[in-house]
């Protein structure tokens, strides 16, 4: 099985340590994973801003680079959903997201066996697209048996104490171009998430999407709220504590 890791553009540029952590986790789990050098982006940012036509060549390039793999692990729920919804069936079917892959295909026992620990009370933020588009957890709107793949993975890390939030899956307000097109509502949404985290005495934020983190952390740092934020891969890799 040929497995590829897709590192989204903003992770590549701003959060290389997250991609390094994800790669380390996969390698330690014995997954022979490649990161092809050709495609920088799946085209989601311009497509969600209304430029799907202009972004088509970007998506085509992505498909071109990744179609030779049996599994494409995307380090973002949001990008994974974009590929699954808009790329051709072959690549769409092969595409998954980091947490989904660990939970569904590797299994939590093997993740636990990596022996990671993180002794903090954490607030969890699952990006909306990963939540509702990929089914990382049961969205609060749906009436179904509860499940939460991210929580299952976090429970496999020693010492993690998950804070119960007032609004379990409220959007953080990033939304790609929304963050700059509607900066006031976007910022207010972010501040409200931070308030929820602090009210429940979270010491750190763990997310599945660094795009949400870029926004939340940007507000937290501007407002001098000391709340470190991580991708879940950093916790599993054991690199979060040292950052």
């Amino acid at each position, binding site marked *: 099985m040929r497995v590829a890791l897709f590192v989204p553009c903003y992770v590549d540029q701003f959060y290389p340590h997250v991609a390094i952590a994800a790669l380390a986790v996969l390698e330690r789990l014995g997954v022979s994973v490649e990161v092809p050098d050709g495609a920088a982006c799946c085209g989601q940012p311009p497509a969600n*801003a209304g430029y799907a036509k202009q972004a088509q060549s970007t998506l085509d390039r992505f498909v071109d680079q990744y179609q030779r793999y049996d599994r494409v692990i995307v380090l973002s729920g949001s990008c994974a959903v974009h590929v699954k919804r808009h790329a051709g069936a072959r690549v769409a079917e092969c595409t998954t997201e980091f947490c989904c892959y660990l939970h569904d295909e590797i299994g939590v026992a093997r993740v636990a066996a990596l022996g990671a620990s993180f002794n903090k009370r954490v607030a969890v933020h699952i990006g909306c697209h990963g939540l509702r588009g990929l089914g990382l957890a049961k969205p609060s709107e749906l009436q179904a048996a509860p499940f939460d793949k991210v929580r299952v993975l976090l429970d496999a890390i020693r010492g993690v104490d998950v804070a119960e939030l007032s609004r379990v899956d409220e959007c953080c307000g990033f939304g790609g171009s929304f963050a700059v097109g509607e900066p006031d509502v976007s910022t207010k949404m972010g501040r409200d998430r931070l308030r929820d985290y602090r009210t429940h005495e979270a010491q750190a934020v763990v997310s599945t999407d660094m795009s949400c983190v870029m926004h939340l952390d940007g507000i937290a740092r501007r407002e001098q709220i000391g709340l470190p934020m991580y991708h879940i891969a950093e916790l599993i890799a054991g690199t979060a504590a040292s950052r």
Partner: protein
Amino acid sequence: MTQRSLELPVLHSRRVDHAAAAATFTRDVPRTDWHDDALWFVREKRDRAAATVADWEALRQQASSIKEHALSHLDEYLEQFEAQAVRNGMHVHWARDADEHNRIVHDVLEQAGARRMVKSKSMLTEECGLNPYLQSRGIEVIDTDLGERIVQLREEGPSHIVMPAIHLKREEVGDTFHEHLGTPAGLADPIALTRAAREHLRAKFLAADATLTGMNFAIAETGGFVVCTNEGNADLGMSLAPVHIASVGIEKVIPRAEDLPVFLRLLARSATGQALTVYTTHVHGPREGQALHVILVDNGRSRQLAREEFWTSLKCIRCGACMNTCPVYRRSGGHSYGSTVPGPIGSVLTPGLDLERYASLPFASTLCGSCTAVCPVKIDLDAQLYRWRQRVTQAGLSSTTKSVASKAGAQLLTRPRLFRLAGAFARFGLRRMPSRVIRLAAGPWAKTRDLPSAPSESFRSWYRHNRSAAGES
């Protein structure tokens, strides 16, 4: 009635700037929090009510299927409804657009010699701008739903389709009633205010010589219709007035009486978290001596039905759940949408009426998808918002900065080497430039948010140095 007349779907009128209106709304932080909490309270009530129904998700699917079937055979069901309604003694009118609807209402009132009309809540008549139309022709129109009456007295439009005055605090209602109904200054007790409204409205009900209601469901099989209210105002109106006009959008027809319970179980639970509305009134014909006129209104609906990408938006049963759950609506208020129907469903319906005017609405969303998950008839609202965005940019109606930035971005992203170079520059800039310069450059982002701290090396660069053999192709 100045603000109401702005809501008429006039072509080439002023463009709605949702972001600007939202910026104004959010400036008052305690009020924004209060508004957000008030609607979130309703959303949570909805969750609890939905949890009491064993097969909630199956019920949503059933409702969706019935509506899709009805919309796919809309011509047949409308004609069947008309035939049965006529057999039941109703007069049936067809209105192509808002103007035609208003004219028909006026003609009916003229012929009956009616000068005073009481109305129960009808977003359709808001959409058609009926009140100013009739008032300018000397007819008194009184909205009798409490929330609607409040906003009518204030000369505002409704900010929510189910809770029209949800944007107002009780003290503001007290001030309005003091000014218009003569309640004591400073009176803000909800029960006392409701009593005052009740007395004021009772006189209007008794004096009315016509009433207008909406319809929640028109049943093709029986030619009857159903009106759901919590205040009984529709019932009182139609029980007293000699003329009853019932206006309905053509998408509200359902095939059979046995379809009705599917929707009734979903509607009030989704809307307010009630099992049922306090009144569920079935009308199958006029009272003895009463004239009952039904007006079937198109006003852009058949155009929306013809749009392959958007026709399922007509499944909407107007519960307002997508507004209550929308994190953007809760923090920007209904008026920021500048359309009768705000929130996610409004942002999907209204661009079809006037794309230029409502071009900003499909962008008033993070595409979080909560609306789609909460919708009782499973309209894929976030997907339709995404599709309207494509239409807006293709029509050249996107705002300039966004358009230039995104095009440049799209070009950049297809060329990995260029992208990496730009990334390197950005990172170089972030490390070396004074923060003030970066804030200016990053514009709306950096007004409230720090930029990520720039790493010395991108992942790709790291990967080339550390795993070079594995990844090269």
